């Protein structure tokens, strides 16, 4: 904490937004502890940190989407113990949320214009005016976007562009961008950075959140590193190298990870996918995951990587192609079918797709093995509880009781529950979509260790992720998707963050 001091450069310029000693707890877990950050006009201030370090929570508190547990937000000199979103916008705070926070039933033009028209106190919704605002906004950002399509029907990349355009439509004094490039190609990222540069020249204070190191070096005037909800250090980019920044974010010297290269050669592949395709979404997907092998599947948001995972998992089955598990061809028409074939899937969105938040941890763990632990239509409750308890202990899930709802757990522990429920089922292949998103550093290490241990026991693992250090650290091979097709395969010889980044956002 010693590094966070008011450094001399701040002296004369008055900050636009200051977070003062902000703390925030969720269900007993500290998401932020005593965080103080100042955002100066005309400065791009990067908040760097791993998933789960508290960056997004800080931004949500500044924008009024969350209420802090302690501390205050000072905007243009006035301190506010908490803000409402409307109030924050009125004070010039604008945010590009990580989840975009768009209105799916309205078209892009309206998504961009409605907040501004609301702010201006307009009463009549003029289509012409909305189009004008939207066109100006996308022009300012150098974006191409179909403005009259309902946002719910746009691709992920276009939705991200729409969220960016909405933030730019408003002449704000403070703009926070939370992972704004996850779905964008290089060309789009370049024009976004141009727009950021122009805003900086106009004196807007910009908070830029990213876990991609290169981006931090590309745009930042100042960097603040967060780890586990606390500020670790702050400084200018020239003070850092990739390695030192990465070490600040993770708290470890190296992200390298103990990993065996032992693929169980000679045995049938844990998963073999041949010519998998689904109309309009992806086609010609062929790859294998050996027993004991960890394979990464990467690509931008909206590249089709999730769709391929969900086809394998039976959520949205493929139209064409073949899937075999341990050498046996299986016709996967449903999740049930995939599960009984030996495929387990940890979905992307833990909160809505993975967990039953208000239900007991024990039930979340045992949902996959209810039938196995029943006799004559009745659950063998004791045996089931034993199995859950053992798994909970193995995965070191921190909770007082398995009867507590999952909602009471931190992100890392919740993710362990999700992985544990599938490990209880003893699958042949485990497909994980973003296994460490929203997970604190300690848990991330633990989770990757668990996966490593399972792979050593012969489990085939497919990780869908765009967390580059994680892919580099854990995978034997990384497959890259773009526009619904597999476009590259990086094996251990040429696997690095730079090569993956180049392949996914070409």
């Amino acid at each position: 904490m010693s590094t966070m001091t008011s450094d001399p450069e701040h002296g004369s310029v008055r900050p636009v937004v200051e977070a003062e000693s902000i703390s925030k707890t969720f269900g007993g877990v500290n998401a932020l502890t005593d965080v103080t950050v100042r955002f100066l006009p005309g400065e791009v201030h990067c908040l760097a940190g791993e998933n789960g370090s508290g960056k997004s929570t800080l931004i949500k508190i500044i924008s009024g989407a969350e209420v802090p547990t302690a501390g205050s937000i000072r905007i243009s000199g006035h301190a506010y113990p908490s803000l409402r979103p409307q109030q924050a916008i009125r004070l010039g705070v604008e945010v590009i949320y990580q989840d975009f926070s768009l209105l799916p039933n309205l078209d892009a033009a309206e998504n961009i214009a409605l907040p501004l028209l609301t702010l201006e106190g307009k009463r009549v919704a003029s289509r012409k005016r909305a189009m004008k605002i939207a066109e100006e906004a996308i022009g300012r950002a150098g974006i191409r976007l179909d403005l009259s399509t309902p946002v719910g029907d746009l691709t992920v990349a276009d939705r991200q562009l729409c969220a960016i355009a909405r933030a730019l439509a408003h002449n704000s004094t403070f703009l926070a961008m939370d992972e704004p490039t996850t779905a964008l190609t290089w060309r789009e990222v370049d024009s976004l950075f141009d727009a950021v540069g122009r805003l900086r020249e106009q004196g807007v204070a910009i908070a830029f959140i990213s876990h991609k190191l290169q981006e931090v070096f590309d745009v930042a005037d100042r960097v603040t590193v967060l780890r586990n909800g606390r500020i670790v250090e702050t400084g200018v980019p020239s003070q850092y190298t990739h390695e030192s920044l990465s070490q600040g974010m993770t708290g470890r010297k190296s992200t390298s990870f103990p990993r065996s290269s032992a693929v169980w050669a000679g045995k049938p592949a844990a998963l073999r996918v041949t010519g998998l395709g689904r109309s309009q979404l992806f086609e010609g997907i062929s790859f294998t995951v050996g027993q004991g092998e960890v394979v990464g599947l990467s690509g931008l948001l909206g590249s089709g990587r999730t769709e391929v995972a969900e086809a394998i998992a039976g959520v949205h089955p493929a139209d064409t192609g073949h899937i075999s598990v341990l050498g046996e061809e299986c016709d996967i028409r449903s999740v049930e079918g995939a599960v009984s074939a030996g495929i387990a899937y940890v979905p992307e969105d833990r909160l809505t797709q993975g967990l039953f938040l208000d239900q007991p941890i024990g039930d979340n763990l045992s949902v996959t093995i209810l039938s196995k632990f029943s006799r004559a239509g009745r659950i063998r409750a004791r045996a089931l509880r034993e199995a859950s308890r053992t798994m909970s202990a193995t995965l070191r899930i921190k909770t007082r009781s398995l009867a507590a709802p999952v909602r009471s757990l931190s992100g890392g522990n919740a993710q362990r529950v999700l992985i544990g429920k599938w490990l209880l089922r003893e699958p042949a292949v485990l497909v994980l979509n973003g296994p460490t998103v929203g997970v604190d550093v300690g848990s991330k290490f633990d989770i990757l260790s668990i996966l490593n241990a399972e792979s050593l026991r012969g489990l085939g693992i497919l990780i869908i992720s765009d967390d580059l250090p994680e892919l580099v650290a854990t995978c034997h091979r990384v497959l890259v998707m773009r526009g619904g097709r597999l476009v590259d395969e990086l094996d251990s010889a040429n696997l690095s963050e730079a090569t993956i980044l180049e392949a996914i956002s070409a």
Partner: protein
Amino acid sequence: MKSLLSTHPRIRRAIGNQEVLLLVIALVIVGAVSVRNPGFLGVDTLFNILTSALVPFIFGIGVTLVLIAGGIDVSFLTVGIFAAYLSCRLFPQADGAPGALLSIAVAVGVGVLLGLVNAVVVLGARLSTLIATLATSAIFLGALFAFIGGTVISDIPHGLVGMNSVSLVRIPLANGGTTRLSALVIIGVVLAVLVALFLRRTIAGRWVFAVGGDEEAARRVGIPIRATRVLVFAIAGGIAGLAGIVQVAQSGRADPTTFIGGELNVIAAVVLGGALITGGRGRVRGTLLGVIVIQIINSALIPLGIPAIWQQAVIGLLLILGVSLQTIANRVRPIRAILAPPASSVPIGETV
């Protein structure tokens, strides 16, 4: 069926369009009845259907608003009859055009007040709209009977009678009688236009869609959620009051038991018209079509000679058919394409 629909985009588009589907259903029924009973296809049938659709349509507009905002209101019928009955009780002598306007204004005003009560319960007790309006409708109906009265008023204010007796069109019929379209229909048309304009052309109307589409996202971009909710309940209450007084004017009597138990049928018509029960989507035009299709079904039964005893079962079956078709139509909405045209880089094949 799934593969058939997904391989034929044109079929998918046609079925995916709710309103086209409703029109087809309506035409099929009218066609079927006309074959059996050629007299069905006439101006009088049209007028009958329009007349009987008027009150459900006005109620339906209010329901549409609440559904778009992401709620389900089941109190609208009690609000409607409460407001209309109270209006008749308060000003029994309302006479002529000014009297009619007074009766309408009072009913709408009472409706707005009751709508605000709904809003207070929903927002204050943080209840789901369905549960809250279930409770308030029990209270409204009880209060109507206990404190205002439950007897039928057969001598309603003359202003209302006069309003109903003005004919837009009057056409002689073969049987020596005449058929006519009451000027009351104008109220429905005007209201439909006003509400459609409100929803499309005002910022507050767009808020309604925003709140129903994704409440949290709407909150984050600074849309006043609570104010929008209160506004929706107030307007829906006022519309229900209007529907109630139109019903009284149409029937020439104020009967507190008129609507008992009909709530879900109106909601069904609105949903049939394309409003999403989960919020964020709905339009006045769709509601009109939904209400009319249900009225066509109802009025087809007698000309088709379906025995009275079978009518309920037939209506149930048609209702199930309607909502099933709607659900299927919604399910075949197009997916967002990802697949780019073949790229220059050659996809890697089975390299392992």
